[in-house]
């Protein structure tokens, strides 16, 4: 197993821990994107360019839009709730 793979594995493990332990929602959405990019590096090092492209597109575009949309919706409801 080449050293590049070990480094990529280390980053993925750290990224997963950071995503789960984040408590603020917007921060967690950002960390999920960064974790997705570390997964892309891992997939490239495992010689899987198609999977890497798929993960790149998904964690760069689809997950942030959907997550931030949901978080903003929650904030909008909370702001308009009659006190």
């Amino acid at each position, binding site marked *: 197993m080449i050293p590049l793979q070990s480094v990529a594995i280390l980053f993925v493990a750290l990224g997963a821990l950071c995503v789960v332990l984040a408590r603020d929602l917007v921060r967690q959405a950002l960390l999920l994107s960064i974790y997705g990019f570390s997964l892309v590096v891992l997939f490239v090092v495992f010689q899987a360019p198609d999977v890497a492209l798929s993960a790149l597109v998904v964690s760069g575009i689809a997950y942030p839009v959907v997550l931030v949309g949901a978080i903003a919706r929650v904030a909008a409801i909370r702001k*308009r709730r009659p006190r």
Partner: protein
Amino acid sequence: MTRSMRIGLFLAGAAGVGFLLVWGVLDLPTFGHYAGPYGDIVSKLTEPQRHIANAVTAIVFDYRGFDTMGEELILFSAASAVAMLFRETREADTKDIVDAVRADAVNGLGVLAAIVTLLLAFDVVAHGFVTPGGGFQGGVVFAAAFVFVYFTCEYHAYLRLATTKFAEPLESFGAGSFVGLGMIAFAFGLAFMGNFIDYGVTGRIRSGGSAALVNWSSALAVAGGFMVIFSEYLKDNMAARYGRTKKVVQ
């Protein structure tokens, strides 16, 4: 059950599950010594048999096209369910909401980025059988091009381009034509999803036979599905932010 009790119980259970998983994983063939014959057989056959250079998309759309049809229908159901959950907000409620970005430079660069992304989406889908790419990746990139318009210009412009009147038929057409292409093979006396066009030359865009058409229909289905999901989320967001929702939590 308090939170610490719950976490303690989980850690006990996770220790057991983790032990079983690690024990099972240690019995797999060592990393780097893939054992099974199926992968080797298929990689040797994709070029001579189907004239497709990319073995992964050959498996996705040709050898295991039936599984991809199932995944496609999962995507279709998920997008329809999201549209159904957000059905109370009508798109007509949001027609006069603008939510504009007022910097001209950002507007201009955003439109440029959207056009380039659209071309990139077509490029990724078309070269699916030659380089890494294919319908699934290209479909998401296609949906992203429209979201660029919202982020850098205004919501009204996005709404004009990507209304559900355009996105939902696109998605349905993609999913339906996937199954339809499988059924057209019946007319040629072949099995479901058999190939009915000639295979072409390896390395050209027009190769792979009818799996290339399946590639395009799945790209349309994925693009439509993601456009529906993004549109629903943005529509609900706009309506909630500018006070058009009917329900307010008491």
